[in-house]
């Protein structure tokens, strides 16, 4: 279970050191960090089953989405050079790396008359 890593990434993304001294993190940036946090927890769901830290994080994320009026749909990363994907999101959005290479595939075709 890698929930501590999700927690650490979220804290790092929302900590004041990320912003300029007088700058308050924008809501939009906060929502991006929260979505990334949510994605991270979902990714660990299987291995974290029964882990109290994990379940409290999931519960807290739900509350934070409501408190900050964040939509669950939207970007999960920002301030990156184009073409530089977030490794966490990249893994989530790549079925083969997420599920391993032993998965079975099926084929369907429709052609001719």
């Amino acid at each position: 279970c890698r929930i501590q890593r999700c927690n650490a990434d979220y804290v790092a993304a929302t900590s004041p050191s990320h912003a300029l001294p007088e700058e308050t993190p924008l809501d939009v940036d906060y929502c991006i960090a929260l979505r990334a946090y949510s994605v991270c927890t979902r990714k660990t769901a299987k291995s974290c089953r029964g882990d109290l830290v994990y379940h409290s994080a999931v519960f807290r994320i739900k509350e934070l989405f409501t408190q900050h009026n964040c939509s669950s749909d939207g970007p999960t990363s920002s301030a990156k050079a184009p073409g530089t994907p977030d490794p966490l999101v990249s893994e989530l959005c790549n079925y083969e790396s997420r599920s391993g290479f032993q998965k079975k595939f099926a084929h369907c075709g429709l052609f001719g008359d």
Partner: protein
Amino acid sequence: PHLRTFKDEFQTCKVEGAWPLIDNQYLSVQVTNVPVVLGSSATATSKITLIFKSYQGCTEQKVYQATTEDLPLAFSDGTRTGGWQEGASSLRILEKPDAGQVEIQADYIGSTVIIRQVGRYLTFAIRVPEETLNLSEESAGLQLCLHGCPKNELIQEHRLSLGSSSPLWPSSRRAYTVEMATEQCRHILQVEDVYFQSCVFDLLTTGDPEFSMAAYGALEDLKALYPSRLKLQTVSKTINVATGAPGPG
């Protein structure tokens, strides 16, 4: 059209009008088939609509639609990618070097789609992870790729009596004889398997020489998407298309 299902069943169906090929939580695919020759029950695909459903963190919902008039290199909203990761999108339309062919890669669901235009009609091929399908679930609704065509939509005739007269290809209107069609398909396809039979069927039904490329394209798609399935293509009970009798296989 000829259908190869996820369970590797091979069928030829009427299915005139709009029919769902796939409908699950990730993807919906619907095709529209129209009659190819007046007086024949054979139809071919004139429209394909794909809906890639929203997948949180990876892509918003995207719709792709191809018709016989237009095989676009973009989704309906004009974009060629889904999701928010510029340059590394997990849903994208690829431009293929061959004209008349589009490939859509949906990495987040491990799926790839190839759509071709052959003559006036369209072909469809997809590779998906088995775990995204409910292969054993009987109540998953009508999905031709999953359950095949309904029995009353099946055309069995071409497998049973290619050599005899058939309402599918009345002799008065035939552009091809069985021998001519067989010869042309032999030039294109190396193995006399179900794809070969489909090629002969298509030529006899339409009289359109371009149609012989539909089976060839389908085989190319299978090679590209799922090379390990190629060994299953050769059916053990090959029909001798010239005589209608079972072959030595």
